[in-house]
Every structure is written in structure tokens, then in C-alpha cells.
């Protein structure tokens, strides 16, 4: 295995784990409230996969950090500025269409990244990615189909999906922005150079959106700050007040 700065590796693993943690949490907010029973079941499936992936990523992050923090410690006892998820996944659910659009945009990126990570020079990372990639293949198929079905459905569903795309598209760019951590991971063969994944992502996403009769909004503007932790949206803090409440209110208890 190539030598890599352990603090940077920790950072990278938190990014992977926080993305799945935060999105898994958002999806789980739908429990019992989906438009049809089959969607309740499917959303729960997605959330369960993402929570499982979180346990693996943050578990490994804790090991790499070497301070004895577990995946639960990392999930439940860090504050907003220590979270490393992209802004896209912390955006509120909105209506079902907005949830599925967010899911699809993330899934398409997630699949590309995991496919590459399955070839990581780090065996532990490769093993996690190999397991997760199978789950995410299914996620993206399903979210893509739903985006198509609703985009090319009724005029109301079309309008709602276009609105969701307009809202969320400016969050796509952050998933591909690289920094010193990404460069170090790429150099060590641990993770792909994110920039090289963009073209395939655009083709994949563009194809689905065309079939959905939706138009990608103009403009290259990108919201940033989640992945580096510099500046999250206000939404994340509210999510943490729920997610972390029991652990914060009863410190040291086991559940």
C-alpha cells in the first residue's frame, strides 16, 4: 500500500461516510410517508444500504484516526463544522420528486466513485467499495427510472421535476471539485482523480435527463463548502439536533 498522510486519509474516509450518513438520514425521514407502499419499502432499502455503508466508512475512519472513536462516535458526537459531506446530500427532502432528483444526482456520482474505489490500492477501501457498488448500482437504476417516469409523466410531474433539477443542479459541481486531500488520494492510488469522472457522469446523467424530457439549467455556478467543512448549509445543524439528540442528552449511556 502506498504511503499516505493518515490525517488526509481520515479526511477522505469521513467524506465518504458523511455523504452516506447524511443522505441515509434524509431518506429515512420519509419512513411511512411515501406516495405508495412500494416506495416506502424502496426508500427504506436505500436508507438501510446507506447506513450500512456509513458504518463501514466511518468505522475505518475511526481506526485510521487511532483515537478510539467508533463510527457512532463520529456520527453522533461531531458538530457541523466537522462534517465532510457535500452540500447536495444535506438539502431537505422537499417533495418526492426533489428527493428522487437529489438521489439520482448523488447516485450517479456515487456509482462512478465506488466503481473506481473498488480498484483502490488500499485493500480495506477496495473491499468496502466492492460491497457498496452492488447496492448503488441498484439505487441509480431505481432513482434514474423514477426521474424518467416523473419527468416524462404528466405536465405537473414534469414541472415539479424540472423545478427540482433547477434547484439541485448547482450542487452537482461540488462533488467533482478537488483539493489537496483528493490529490493525495489520487497520487497514492487510493481514490480516483474526481475530475476524470466528470465526462462519464455528464453522459450518464445527460442521457437519463433527456429521456426524462428535462433540461439542465444554464450556468456553471456551484455551491461549495460542505466537503471541506468550511461552510455547510443551515439545514445540517437542524438534522444533527435530531440525529444526535439522545447521545447528547444522555452522555455515556449505552443503547
Amino acid at each position, binding site marked *: 500500500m502506498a504511503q499516505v498522510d493518515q490525517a488526509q486519509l481520515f479526511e477522505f474516509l469521513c467524506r465518504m461516510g458523511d455523504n452516506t*450518513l447524511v443522505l441515509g*438520514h434524509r431518506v*429515512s*425521514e420519509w*419512513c*411511512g*410517508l*411515501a*406516495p*405508495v*407502499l*412500494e*416506495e*416506502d*419499502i424502496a426508500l*427504506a*432499502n436505500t*436508507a*438501510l444500504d446507506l*447506513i*450500512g455503508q*456509513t*458504518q463501514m466508512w466511518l468505522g475505518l475512519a475511526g481506526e485510521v484516526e487511532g483515537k478510539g472513536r467508533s*463510527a*457512532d462516535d463520529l*456520527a*453522533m458526537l461531531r458538530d457541523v463544522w466537522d462534517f465532510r459531506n457535500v452540500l447536495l446530500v444535506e438539502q431537505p427532502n422537499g*417533495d*418526492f*420528486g426533489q428527493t428522487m432528483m437529489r438521489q439520482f444526482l448523488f447516485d450517479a456520482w456515487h456509482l462512478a466513485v465506488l466503481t473506481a474505489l473498488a480498484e483502490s490500492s488500499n485493500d480495506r477501501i477496495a473491499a468496502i467499495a466492492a460491497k457498496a457498488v452492488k447496492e448503488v448500482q441498484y439505487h441509480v437504476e431505481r432513482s434514474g427510472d*423514477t426521474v*424518467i*417516469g*416523473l419527468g*416524462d*409523466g*404528466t405536465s*405537473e*410531474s*414534469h414541472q*415539479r421535476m424540472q423545478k427540482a433539477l433547477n434547484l439541485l443542479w448547482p450542487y452537482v459541481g461540488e462533488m467533482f471539485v478537488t483539493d489537496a486531500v483528493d490529490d493525495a488520494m489520487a497520487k497514492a492510488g487510493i481514490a480516483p482523480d474526481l475530475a476524470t469522472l466528470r465526462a462519464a457522469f455528464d453522459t450518464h446523467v445527460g442521457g437519463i435527463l433527456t429521456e426524462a424530457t428535462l433540461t439542465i439549467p444554464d450556468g456553471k455556478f456551484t455551491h461549495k463548502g460542505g466537503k471541506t467543512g468550511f461552510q455547510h448549509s443551515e439545514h445540517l445543524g437542524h438534522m444533527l439536533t*435530531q*440525529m444526535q*439528540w*439522545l*447521545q447528547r442528552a*444522555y452522555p*455515556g*449511556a*449505552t*443503547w
Partner: protein
Amino acid sequence: MYAQMVKSESADDSAEAKAFQERIDAGEKIEPKDWMPAGYRKTLIRQIGQHAHSEIVGQLPEGNWITRAPTLERKAILLAKVQDEAGHGLYLYCAAETLGVSRDELTEMLLDGRMKYSSIFNYPTLTWADMGAVGWLVDGAAIMNQVPLQRTSFGPYSRAMIRICKEESFHQRQGYDIMMKMAAGTPEQKAMAQNALNRFWYPSLMMFGPSDKDSIHSTQSMAWKIKMNTNDELRQKFVDQTVPQAEYLGLTVPDETLKWNEEKGGYDFAEPDWDEFFEVIKGNGPCNTERLAARNKAWDDGKWVRDGLLAHAEKRAIKKVAAE
């Protein structure tokens, strides 16, 4: 018990009805295409529908804690459990559909109050210990009723019950596991566990419904084997099973009259407040309004999605025909 006070239709005394009853007495399964008395069909639709609705509304009190689960593992287990309940709803709606009523029709009847769901889901879940109490007591009570229903006379219902029962025992175990952690935890956790038991004990006893040993409806349902035991039998069984479990946890069942009765080989226990039960059934439970409002909102908010997906499927089908 997820189907409470289901009114049974009466049998007729035609030759077909007699032959039908003989098949049931002989332990044969009735399948959807078989002849069946109109009353049997109607009663089953009511019962299976109410059971399905209970699974669906039952997602809400536990869904209330998924976003506050204390660990990733607990969150995953709870989410998987609630997902199972949605699946149970699906199996049961499918079983009801074989009797000629669609899922959408049944849903509409739930949403406008024509059909009921179990009284238990109108109680609030206030602390994490409630996730333990619900699994332990509510799923525990449900199992009491559902295990015998695996032998019910209607084939699709029986098969749905067999699938459901496999998952319910896992639900009860995960609930009891939460209770064990809490009861052995900090003083606050133990207090939470006791508090949950205090609130859920009597509503759980109500799940079996009021005594029906003199009810004509129950007698007919039992003859048709769509009800396997009286409400009192099941309640007694539940109490006898649950009291030692509470003792093992070091928790106190909130019933001062609770006492082992050597002669009957079971506990004597206090009846729940049946006036409260009838109020809950009428819509005056602590959460009736919220539960129905949540289901109605989910259904109304989801309309554009269902319409959109349907419209897309139709467009696809037309394109496919045009291409052929």
C-alpha cells in the same frame, strides 16, 4: 391483535353453505376461486383490510423515532423493522385483493374513516424506550393473534400470516433487546423503560379487544376459522408470557392486582379501561387525529407522483404498440 371487533356477517343455510362449512371443518383451505358465502367474503375483507391498515398506520409511531435512534445499528434495525411492517401491509392488501377489493379502495376507506386500524397505534411514542416497549409488547401481542391465524381457512390469508409471523418474532426480540439495554442502563434509562411499560401495558391488553365469549360475531368467525381463539384466551396467554419477561427486566407491571393463580395456571390481572378503548376506537385517542392526518397527507401529496408514473407507463405502452 390488529383486527379488533370485526363484525362478522352471518352464514346462510343453503346447501352450498353447508358444503362449504364441511370443507372448513375438514381443515381444507378455501382459495379465491372457490365458492364462498357472501358473509365469509365480507367478513374477511373487513378483517384483512383492518389488519393491513394497522400495519400501515403502525409505521408512524415507530417512524417517529427513526431520525432520533441513538446509534447507527439501532437506526438500521428500527428502519428494517418498519420496512417489514410496510411489507406486511402489502402482503395483506394482496390477500384482500383476491377477494375482489382493490388496495386503493381499501386505502380510501381507511383515509375517510370508514375502516379502522388497531387502537394501539393511536398512542404516542415519547421516549426511545417506547421503541423497546412497542416491539416487546405490541409486536408481542400481535404475534399471539397471528400465530394461530397461520391456520386460518382462507388460503391467501394463511400464507400471508406465515410470511408475517417469521418477521414478527424478530420484531419482538429487537424490542425486548432495547428494553434489556435500558433496564440495565443508567438510572435515567431504567426510568424511561419503566415509564414506557406504564404507558403501554393497558393499551397492549386492549389490542385483543373486549371480551367476546358471548359474541355471536365471534362464534361465526370461529366456525369459519377466520378467528381462532377468543379475545380473553389470547389476552391471558399474553399476560402469562409477558409478566415473567417484565420481572426479568426488573420492571414493574402497573397492576397492583396482578397475582399468579395456581388453580387456573395463569395470572389474575386487571382489565384495561374499556371506556378509554371505545373512545380511542371512536377517534378520541391521543393520536388519532395526527395518525389519520399523516396518512391523508402522504396520500394526497403523493397523488401527482402516482399520476405521473401511471401517465409515463401509458406513454411507454403506446410507444411500444406503435413500434410493433
